[in-house]
């Protein structure tokens, strides 16, 4: 029945979820046929709702196929007479690692969690102990065996989850978007673990993802769209079909995109290896006639790169002219023109307890009106704390936060001193003035959250009203506006955030994840804040969703001219959408300035654990081989612009060179 060579065999596989009225919904998977060999490393790509997670759940019989054949390791999964024992035996062999690291750890100690699977299987001591120790050693978490899971980082938790699967001695592991909620460092940890398992243990690996850079690491990429297989091949083969991928909401990696553009512009560049920076660098190197391949430089040596003040032509996008002045302000003392300003701000969690933890120390930053400021840093760098300082949710332990030049955390005593002399209080008695000033402070504090709108991480989880309309109206209603004004604002905000008219009367819980997020953003925009602060606005979205959210934010900023702050750990997004960038690491602000300045320090950025844009990495590889390129190239556009004249001059030659070199 099944091909003896293949480990996973699916033929005409279909699956439909049960709809609301008991009738089957439109199929989530239709007519899927594929074979995966033992020991393969396969990436399964697709946008949210494409059916890729459904496929994963079929492999483990969390869901049962509606029709078609499905065999895994010789076990027929469509057999209706499968016993409980057979099911367990199967699940032991095919392990699953899920998206949210918090929701798959059961026990309150790391080692007990790793033991959970084998305990269920009835593995006796001392075998059990040995398995737990081995699994923890494989993922490099031995030192954390007696820790509580909630104290670990996302990447560490995910590694514990992998260890929990490994302890069951599986043949195959399915990763269901296991890196989607992690920061770049955590993602790296998990991907390295996956690769080790595949290469050194011969484990069959299925990585379901929408990150193209991750898919490039696999041996084989399968693209699923609308429940069916769209493409199946090596990363190179799949990524060479850029337009078809884009049509289904996926983006190719930056370096692949660059090669595509150069090719389209007539630069030649025949050859393979377009899915990774190293491959692209080899290809471009040959075309540029650079000397032979060299080892890519380590991050540390790259730290010596000259800060490129040489980036003369770099400038803020149109409409942000005051940014340049503000850049100087942030560095200097004079801060006129800054919308929001942090001055030597610090913050400590659990101050005065043995658990005290410094989240921010001596951070000074200027956020100008009229442009987008990016704050970048990995998890635990203090960036989320900084967000809460901006709208008064948290009060700094030291230093001041100014909005339009006014200290937002004025104490009553300070206010008495500074406001007493103002005309409206001068005529009042001491007591009356005190009362009036106190009322003024309360009013200001309340106003602050409307003036500085904060969109928190995963904001879709804060929706609660019966309809989308009411949820967006929650903020304006709290502001005490008239019904007409509220209505106007809700509709405006909905349009800005991309919330469609006909969603307004629906329940927010009926929408998809990306749609909910837009509703949540609309809810903050509806307060018409002077400063809009967004914490990881695109986290967990697929490429199409990401682009949509960022384009909406940019359009909003252009139309309203307000200040926007985006917090993220994605360098590529920062490079594309932000005018100014501040970099936080270990509670300190280590870099700030225009994005040109900041991205010229790629070595430093990598040192603190941030991922530099892939195209920047590619350019660095070329520079290491002697290419005459500036260091601060961080967008595909810029790279293409620089490389094209160099390539077209010698296109024919380069193409020939590529063949002879092979």
């Amino acid at each position, binding site marked *: 029945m099944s091909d003896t060579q293949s480990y996973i065999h699916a033929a005409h596989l279909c699956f439909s979820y049960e709809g609301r009225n008991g009738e089957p919904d439109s199929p989530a998977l239709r007519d899927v046929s594929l074979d995966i060999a033992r020991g393969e490393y396969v990436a399964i790509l697709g946008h949210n709702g494409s059916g890729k997670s459904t496929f994963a759940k079929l492999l483990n019989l*969390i869901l049962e196929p509606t029709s078609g054949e499905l065999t895994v390791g010789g076990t027929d999964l469509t057999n209706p007479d499968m016993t409980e024992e057979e099911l367990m035996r199967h699940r032991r062999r095919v392990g699953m690692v899920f998206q949210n690291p918090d929701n798959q750890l059961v026990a309150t100690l790391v080692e007990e969690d790793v033991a959970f699977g084998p305990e269920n299987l009835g593995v006796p001591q001392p075998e059990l102990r040995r398995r737990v120790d081995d699994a923890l050693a494989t993922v490099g978490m031995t030192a954390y065996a007696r820790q509580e899971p909630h*104290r670990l980082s996302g990447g560490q938790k995910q590694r514990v*989850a992998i260890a929990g699967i490994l302890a069951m001695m599986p043949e195959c592991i399915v990763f269901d978007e296991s890196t989607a909620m992690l920061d770049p460092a955590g993602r790296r940890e998990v991907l390295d673990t996956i690769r080790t398992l595949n290469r050194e243990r011969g484990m069959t690996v299925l990585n379901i993802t929408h990150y193209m850079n991750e898919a490039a690491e696999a041996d084989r990429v399968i693209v699923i769209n609308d429940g069916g297989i769209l493409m199946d091949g090596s990363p190179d083969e799949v990524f060479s079909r850029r337009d078809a991928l884009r049509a289904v909401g996926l983006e190719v990696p930056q370096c692949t995109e660059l090669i595509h553009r150069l090719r389209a512009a007539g630069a030649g560049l025949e050859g393979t290896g377009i899915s990774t920076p190293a491959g692209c660098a080899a290809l471009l190197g040959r075309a540029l006639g650079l000397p032979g391949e060299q080892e890519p430089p380590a991050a540390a040596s790259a730290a010596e790169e000259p800060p490129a003040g040489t980036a003369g032509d770099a400038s803020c996008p149109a409409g942000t002219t005051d940014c340049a002045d503000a850049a100087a302000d942030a560095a200097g003392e004079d801060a006129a023109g800054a919308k929001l300003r942090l001055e030597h701000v610090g913050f400590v969690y659990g101050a005065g307890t043995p658990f005290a933890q410094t989240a921010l120390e001596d951070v000074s930053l200027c956020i100008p009106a009229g442009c987008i400021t990016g704050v970048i840093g990995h998890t635990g760098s203090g960036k989320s704390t900084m967000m809460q300082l901006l709208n008064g949710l948290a009060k700094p332990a030291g230093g001041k936060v100014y909005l339009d030049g006014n200290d937002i955390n004025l104490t009553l005593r300070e206010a008495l001193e500074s406001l007493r002399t103002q005309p409206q209080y001068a005529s009042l008695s001491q007591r009356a003035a005190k009362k009036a000033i106190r009322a003024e402070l309360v009013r200001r504090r309340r106003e602050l959250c409307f003036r500085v*709108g904060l969109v*928190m991480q995963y904001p879709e*989880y804060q929706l609660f009203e019966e309809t989308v309309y009411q949820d967006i109206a929650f903020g304006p209603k709290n502001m005490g506006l008239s019904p007409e004004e509220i209505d106007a604002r809700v509709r405006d905000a909905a349009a800005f955030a991309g919330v469609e008219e006909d969603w307004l009367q629906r329940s927010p819980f009926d929408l998809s994840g990306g749609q909910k997020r837009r509703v949540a953003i609309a809810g903050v925009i509806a307060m018409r804040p002077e400063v809009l602060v967004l914490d990881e606005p695109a986290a967990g979205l697929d490429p199409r969703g990401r682009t949509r959210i960022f384009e909406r934010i940019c359009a909003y900023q252009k139309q309203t001219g307000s200040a926007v702050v985006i917090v993220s750990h994605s360098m590529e997004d920062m490079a594309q959408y932000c005018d100014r960038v501040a970099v936080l690491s270990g509670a300190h602000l280590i870099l700030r300035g225009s994005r040109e300045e900041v991205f010229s320090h790629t070595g430093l950025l990598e040192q603190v654990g941030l991922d530099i844009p892939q195209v920047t990495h590619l350019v660095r590889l070329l520079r290491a081989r002697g290419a005459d390129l500036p260091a601060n190239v961080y967008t595909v556009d810029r790279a293409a612009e620089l490389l094209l004249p160099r390539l077209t001059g010698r296109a024919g030659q380069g193409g020939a060179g590529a063949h002879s070199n092979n």
Partner: protein
Amino acid sequence: MKNIAFGQYYPADSVLHRMDPRAKLIAAILYIVSIFLCSNALCFVVLALSAVLLVLLSRIPLRLVLRTLRPVIFILAFTCLINIFFTKGEHLLTPAGWRVQIYAEGLWNALFILLRITILLAATGVFLTFTTTPIALTDALEQLLSPLKKIRVPVHEMAMIVTIALRFIPLLTEETEKIMNAQKARGADFQSGGLVRRARALLPVFIPLLGSAMKRADELAEAMDCRCYHGGNGRTRLHVLRFRATDVAAMLLVTAFGVGVFFLNRLGIGYTM
């Protein structure tokens, strides 16, 4: 919030911390029984001394142990006052003819009750909550109650529920804080207004929290399925609790103490309740 340990567990390295949680549970029950056997002054002296010894052994700061009295302080004071003013006896302390009559017996009774409750709370703290993690306590209960499985009491399932609850409490606390902040950022006001208004103001926190808890439960169930969870049958344990010589010795000691108190009590030395 992340770094605050859940429950009252006070990490330290003491004889009591190292004891098997089941032994501690049994010892605590025996000790509490002996507290209630006590009814004369000599007994209470011995009991108080033993309690002090226990606190010293556990290396828990006395201040922390006494803090457990805080929630019951009013009831305690009330009971003592009732005893002082309403116990009739033979030794009237107040001058004859006063409307308020206080007898020596009343004072003794009040003192005994005070001691009893203080020692009771200190002992549960020292044997259990301060020196045993909630999870070890759950394990101990599961194993001690496991004979009840024969009469179909779902002991394992109940223990699993407690374990999962313990695992998710820090997560949900953190999440509550996040949602509250998110709604505050939209101008929600949790502080002002009367009781009804405040309760209503919490709706924007509870609804998302409930939704997320449901989602977590779903995902956790799936993850547990994937890891072959099928109830307690045929499960092995990574950490098997084993009675050691010290555990047995400790239980014998407490039993001996209880018997000692029982006989001491019959001697009736000092005021007897």
